[in-house]
């Protein structure tokens, strides 16, 4: 009986979905993390990386393209000569992280750290990535600690991640501070803009939020999270029809939280549109005007 109960728990806990949001940035000048991470590289950029002179980077580019086996196999073949290379272990860990094999990812990120430590070096990259693992495991405090430690080296990725984490937990002041800092570095980065738009949205400053959403390149507007947030802003600005269309254009998503939010928002929008329609109908009746043919 107890075993059955525990099994149920296990199934519940491990069934969480971990799909990443699809952000493919074509140009490096629009990618604040361009030199630090290939996560948001477009397919074209990744294909170019496959021929990178550094075989380790070429290998891990396969993992970013979701060809984990190829990426890991290439890394295996490059083990010789790289055992003392923390980056090597970071790449292996990255592949496993991208494959959602968090235990192995954690193992290799730790190996990267300990390898660097033996060489009396700090390896912020691996710290950042361990933060990701902790984040995925919902150990948010630990994740934050890793990001904080990692950002000391000056790389931007931990800051970027910290921004996301603060935003997730509604720490808007800190989030805004980080977002502005990053915007100052690269104002074209879509996720930095989205973060700012979200911050203003959560603060209830919908007009400013809308302005940020308008700065987002059109190819990203249908991203499931962006379309949802933008629709919220439009909703609050009374642009119900636009909100409906934005929501409608949003990509199909498997992420349940976004899916549920969009469902709820859609109801609200539809309700408002219904209300508006009723108001217009009532007004028309009152004035005796007939609606336009195109109406």
């Amino acid at each position, binding site marked *: 009986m107890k075993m059955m109960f525990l099994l149920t728990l296990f199934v519940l806990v491990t069934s969480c979905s971990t799909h990443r949001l699809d952000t493919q940035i074509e140009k490096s000048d629009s990618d604040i993390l361009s030199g630090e991470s290939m996560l948001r590289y477009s397919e074209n950029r990744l294909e170019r990386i496959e021929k990178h002179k550094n075989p380790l980077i070429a290998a891990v580019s396969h993992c970013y393209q979701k060809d984990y086996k190829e990426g890991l196999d290439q890394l295996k073949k490059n083990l010789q000569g790289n055992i003392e290379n923390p980056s090597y272990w970071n790449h292996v860990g990255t592949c496993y992280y991208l494959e959602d094999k968090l235990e192995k990812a954690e193992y290799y990120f730790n190996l990267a750290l300990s390898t660097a430590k033996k060489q009396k070096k700090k390896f912020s990259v691996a710290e950042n990535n361990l933060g990701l693992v902790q984040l995925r495991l919902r150990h948010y405090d630990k994740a934050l600690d890793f990001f904080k430690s990692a950002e000391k080296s000056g790389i931007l990725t931990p800051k970027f991640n910290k921004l*996301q984490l603060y935003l997730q937990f509604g720490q808007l002041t800190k989030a805004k501070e980080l977002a502005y800092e990053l915007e100052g570095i690269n104002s074209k980065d879509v996720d930095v803009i989205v973060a700012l738009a979200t911050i203003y949205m959560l603060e209830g400053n919908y007009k400013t939020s809308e302005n940020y959403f308008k700065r987002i390149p059109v190819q990203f507007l249908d991203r499931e999270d962006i379309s949802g947030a933008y629709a919220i802003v439009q909703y609050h600005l009374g642009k119900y029809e636009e909100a409906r269309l934005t929501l409608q254009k949003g990509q199909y998503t498997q992420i349940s939280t976004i899916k549920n939010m969009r469902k709820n928002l859609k109801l609200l929008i539809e309700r408002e549109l219904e209300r508006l329609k009723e108001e217009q109908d009532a007004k028309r009746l009152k004035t005796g005007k007939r609606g336009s043919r195109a109406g």
Partner: protein
Amino acid sequence: MKVIILFTLFTFSTGILAQSKTPVRNDKMSERWHTLNKLINQETKTIKSIGRLGPKLQHRLLELNSERIKLLKEQENQVFLSSPKSLIKQKGKAWFFRKSMALFKQVRNDGHKLINQFPRFRHKAGIFYTLALNERDYGGDKKTEFYLLKVLQHAKKGDKIIHHAKTSLAEYHYNKKNYKTAISYYNDVVKNTKDDWYTKHLYNQAWCLLKERQYDRGIENLRTAFEYSKNPNYVSVKDQVLEAFAVFFVHGNQISEGISFYLGNLKDPTDYLISMARKTANKGLFKETRDIISASLGKARELELHSKEIDIRLLELEIYRNFKKFDLHFETSVALQELQRKKALSPEQRDDATNKLKSLVNYLQVRVTKNRKASGGDYDKKMMNEVISYFDILSTIDEENKDSYNFFSGETHFAVGNYKEAADFYKSSIEDGMNKKGKKADDLRRKTLNSFLATLGKSDFDKKQGDEYTIFAYENHIKFWPKDEKSRKIYVKLYNLQLDKGKVDEALVTFNLYNKTYKQDAEIQRGMITHLMDFYIKSKNSVALAQWIEKFEKGFLGFKRDYVEKALAILGQILFDEYEAYEKSGKKDLAIKGYEGLYKDERYPDKIKAQSAYNASVLYLEMADTEKSYEWVKSSMQKHQYSDLEKLLPKLAGMSERYAFLQDFKRSALLSKTLLAKFCKNQVERKSDLYISAVHHHLMDGDYRSAAQNTKLGTACGIDSKEVEKLNKQIIGHLASHRHYREFFDFYNKHKSEEIYFDTFSAHLINIYWDTKFTSNPKLHKSVSVILMNWKKQNKLPEVFTKNLEFMEQYNQFEKLVKGINFELPKFKKFDQEKFNQALEQNLTLLQSITKDGEALIKQGHKEMTLLTYSLLEKQYQRMAKAIETYTPAGMPVEFVTGFKKHMGQLSGNLKEKSVSYNSGARTVIEKNDILSFNNFKFIKTHQFVEKVKYRYPASRLVSTADLGGDQ
């Protein structure tokens, strides 16, 4: 039945032997003898039955008794011949013939009596003739002539008996060497040409004539006899005559006539010519002899009479030797050798030739060596060459003894200091006599080999040839006398020489024989094999090395273990050199193929197989193929001896680590576990590492069951308890951290009774408790709560957590209390100031009260409860403010209502400010403490909407990896 017959025969023959001391009448006389005897007896009986006998019948009886003497003598002679020598010695010969002698004497007396009794008897000559023949045949020939002359005296003219008596007289005188008298009688005898014995008489007379040097007459007699012999009416004496001619022609000095006679009258005259040549030679007539030989040889060649030609050559050898014509002798010998080559000599001819050649060559040998001594080292080279040639000829003719002749050739060369030539002949001698058995052959071999070895010591052969000869001599020495003190010393020398020459198979034959014969010389033999091993090592002959090592491992020659180990190591190095070269040139696949081949090759010992499998495993590992690497390392471990495996352990542990580096946690754990189990009870390096790997890497691979199973090895294999404890705590942490709750609780159930893990379990359970308290997993939260509450009852909970639980309880009560508050102001038909004020005061007092409780809770510092409390207080102030702000006193004048609203507005404003202060206070706490809680949202402006649409910022889907790759 057969036995009985044999027994009977035996008895019979022994009976004869037993009786043989006294002569017995031998009944085994011929049928003819019995017939004659019977006839004599019958006729004698018949004559005697007549009664009184006349001279004629008595003469007949005399003749019959003479015949009887003959039969009797035949019988006595047979007894004599079959009698033992001792009896003959004892009795004397005469005793055996006494009866015939008695009868002879009786017949003689009877003859004399008859002549005396009948002096005018007309056949008196016949009686004398009988007595003459009896005298000749049985009486010692003493009175033969007397009786024969009596015959001539009493014979009637023309009686044939006169011819017979003269013939007997001629023969009598011939025998008595009275040739003249004999010739005289023969002159009368040969007048009778009608006698069928005419030819014989001529022949006999010829000999008498020869004796009297009347050669021409004698030759004439022979010619007549030869011619008459062709007539079948005459007794043929052809052969005797032809034989005799040779003598007669030679003595008559008519050599050319003789040659002509023979050549003219005989188809094959060679035998007679040889005979004649021999005679001329005996007479010292060299030229004549050569003429005869030449003629004879010509005829033999003409008729292609091979054997005769050989006979002639043999004769020549004899003659030339006697006449000291050595050149001719040598030529003849060469000719004989050629004849032998065409067709073998008969045994007799071969013996004859051999003896003659040997005789001369011995003589020449002595002369050559004597010459050399006399001339201080010089010798007659021509003669020397001839000697060697003679031995060669002998070897051809007497091939069976070729070994001897080669030995003698060798000896000859040796004697004059031609050591190289001597060595060649000695070698040939050994080779030729290789298959001969018996003492004689063995003696010759020993002599030859000794001489051969002596030669090698004396001559300055070039090294190659010297070695070749030495090997030959040694090989044969040990072959023929394996158990021999000289051989015992030779074995090692020969073996080393053979090895130096690279003749390994031959060296091994030497070694094996030595080993078989002298097992006690193990130490020397170990040295020999060590030498061999060095050779194999130098020549990189791995197959042979492996075969020997296998023998060593079975105890052969009692080699010490460290030597075997060293040999194994070298073998490994040789075998692996090739594949290591592949490795170095990057051809790892070829190297692996090689190692795999070695592993599968049955010829190699386990140690090599183990090392090969290990090497293949390492290469697969370098090629990042952990699956195959593991398969081969398993094979390697199966073949490795325990002690070797122990030496290899650090590397194997390293391999296990490398599997993990190559992302194969499963095989890393399996290898570690296997090694740990193997060395479970031993103190070995990196044991703890193996233990950790066996557990941790299974865990990394998601195989919790195996990981948990392997944890048991910690204690069982004597791993430091602190290490075991540390690892178990890591497992607990890992399972909790990665939210593997099923495994976590399984591990908890296994170890909950162990006090050392209580703190770790409780810390994680408390984390799970809070984690699930504020997120959506009520069932897990409930099960964790059950455990914790149970501990609480047992007072086992950590103090911090106990306090936290108490705060939680306080908060729950607070929340319950707060949620139970209904900030409602009373409604009146007509506003009742007093009652309103009372109600307002009660609400404000209540608000004050919960504010106090809430602030007390906030002070506890639990982040979630703090935020919740802030939120509750914020809301209550808002609610109160709203209640006051929206209250309108009913039934009152407008002025009153306006004044009332203004007054209440100030109050609600204060309450709102308080509410906002809780909000900002919470946000301050959040920011100050970097609180990451979903309760943070309770304090943002859009909180309600966020909650309404259930908006969540998808941070975990937006965060970024860092790889420092890509566009730089």
